[in-house]
């Protein structure tokens, strides 16, 4: 709310200013130029952003011969559906695409659901209780935020090998289910939004500790769960290094690993690769287009707090 009124006030100030400058200079061309200079970079960046998505579709509907010609393909032909189907068949002959897609979906969903549960539980524990060793435990947790993923990648691989978890989905989603970032985010949100009196009142009414969390607090923190869930899902969906290290057979690959494995050095079947890319990228893009306002406001909230 405050932000909205602020930007309105600013708009008023700025419009007053432009009016003033117009009066002073009476040069509408200069004002037009100013607006052009502001919009032009945004429009150019919009084109740069969207172009790879468009080009993905174009290449996915071209035969090898159509891709490797001069001038290169720039728009769809009338036979696009036939070519797309051909490329799709070629893709299925190279990798178990739907199995790979399912692996990605399964890992992303498991990791999202489990980390929502364990991180909100941990965040609630830090936010609503006072216990011996709380501050030191919290400091340790914050410190772990600074340790880069790369440092642990080799022991992580060896550990998973020792557990017999290579080629399994749980090797990817279990290690991160109670992560420091999520617990920190949840703690901040719960502290700011849930009054401790609410918890005490529930306790007086005889509610158990876990059911206070699960039945009363959890439903009240859905906003932060939404943003954290989106972040976790995207992080898992786009994770490349983890599955690359753990998943050692074609059937267990996730989408990024599977698509990258299609790149040889010569005669890469880009048509087939782009079919896989289109099918795996566009559902997310659609969801994003439908919910972009919500997603962006949630994500910036998280970043501002972090």
């Amino acid at each position, binding site marked *: 709310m405050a932000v909205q009124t602020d930007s309105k006030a600013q708009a008023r100030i700025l419009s007053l200013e432009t009016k003033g400058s117009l009066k002073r200079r009476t040069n509408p061309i200069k004002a037009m130029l100013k607006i052009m200079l502001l919009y032009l970079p945004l429009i150019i960046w919009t084109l740069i952003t969207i172009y790879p998505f468009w080009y993905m579709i174009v290449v996915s509907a071209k035969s090898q011969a159509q891709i490797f010609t001069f001038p290169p393909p720039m728009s769809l032909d009338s036979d696009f559906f036939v070519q797309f189907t051909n490329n799709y068949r070629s893709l299925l002959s190279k990798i178990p695409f739907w199995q790979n897609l399912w692996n990605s979906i399964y890992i992303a969903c498991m990791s999202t659901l489990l980390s929502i549960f*364990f991180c909100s*539980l941990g965040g609630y524990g830090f936010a609503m209780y006072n216990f011996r060793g709380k501050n030191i435990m919290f400091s340790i947790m914050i410190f772990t935020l600074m340790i880069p993923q790369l440092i642990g990648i080799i022991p992580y691989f060896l550990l998973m090998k020792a557990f017999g978890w290579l080629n399994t989905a749980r090797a990817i989603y279990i290690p991160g289910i109670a992560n420091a970032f999520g617990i920190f985010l949840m703690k901040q949100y719960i502290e700011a939004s849930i009054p401790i009196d609410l918890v005490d009142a529930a306790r007086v009414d005889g509610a158990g500790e876990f059911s206070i969390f699960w039945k009363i607090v959890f439903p009240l923190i859905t906003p932060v769960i939404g943003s954290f869930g989106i972040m976790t899902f995207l992080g898992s969906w786009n994770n490349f290094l983890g599955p690359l290290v753990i998943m050692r057979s074609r059937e267990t690959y996730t989408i990024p690993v599977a698509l990258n494995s299609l790149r040889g050095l010569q005669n890469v079947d880009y048509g087939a690769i782009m079919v896989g890319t289109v099918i795996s990228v566009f559902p997310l893009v659609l969801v994003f287009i439908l919910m972009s306002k919500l997603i962006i406001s949630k994500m910036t909230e998280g970043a501002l707090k972090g």
Partner: protein
Amino acid sequence: MNTKVTSEGINWGTFRRKATPYVFVAPFFISFLIFSTFPIFYSFVLSLNSWDGSRPLNYVENFVGLNNYVNVLKDPLFWQSFVNTVAMAIITAIPQHFLGLFFAFILNQGFVKLKEFFKGVLFLPYITSSIAIGLVFNVLYGNPYGLLNYALASLEKLGIAGPGTLIPLTSPINWIREFTWVAIASLAIWRWTGWNAIIYFAGLQAIPDNLYEAARIDGANWAQVFFKITLPLLRPMILFATTMTIIGQVQLFDDPMVIVGGVGAMPTVSNRGMTLAIYLYANAFSWARFGIAAAVSWIVFFIIVFLSIINRRVFQKKD
């Protein structure tokens, strides 16, 4: 009798209440011990051993002290990776943050319309993976049939490009081989500029308007407003965003793998695309030199710490 039972009941209740928070935060500490603490200590132990992973690690036979560190620091390929990583970090970070700030300023102008649309566009790359978009970039960089080479050939026809002109390049160019750093950096710039813009925009929105008003009443020009008000107040945001860039760039792995990498899990990355993260990965998973790889991971860690401290010095003023 009666009182004793109640007091016991109370004790049980208090015990439960005291134990509850530990139970609630336990999943983090258990997973932290297994999946973070252990790997970190183990990677340190590993870095002091020479081990190819074929037999169980023998801490007496395999112990080599700090030799792995010395060998890494003597390896020209390590330094090549280091230079590549730093160079790509610089050519990625600078345009990314300048453009990000620039777009944030434009969006923050009250009269700019379609704000939500442009914000959506800026944020869109964040939801895609480097791999998916990197594969598209590969097609665009194609030699000789990529769109970029076509664009260059067209410019040559117009006399804008070619030897002795403004753009001294002759098509077709093997972009990935000739301009490896830029080819890889472009992908990161494409993916992260918008994210930075959104972060900076949020920061700009949080600056109260009365500060600007006061400055205008005092007769400050735009440069003074920018350097005396906006930039100092945006400092925490800039610190946050640049720190994230540094941490991400030092660990850069996906982008060079997809742009110049080889088949499957074996990086056959040409040396100009070799980053520290790929060097580490190749040591462990292609060359079975786990001890050396562990040493590399510690060196990378200290590079990140060092750069973060410098970054903090630059962007966080004490006053």
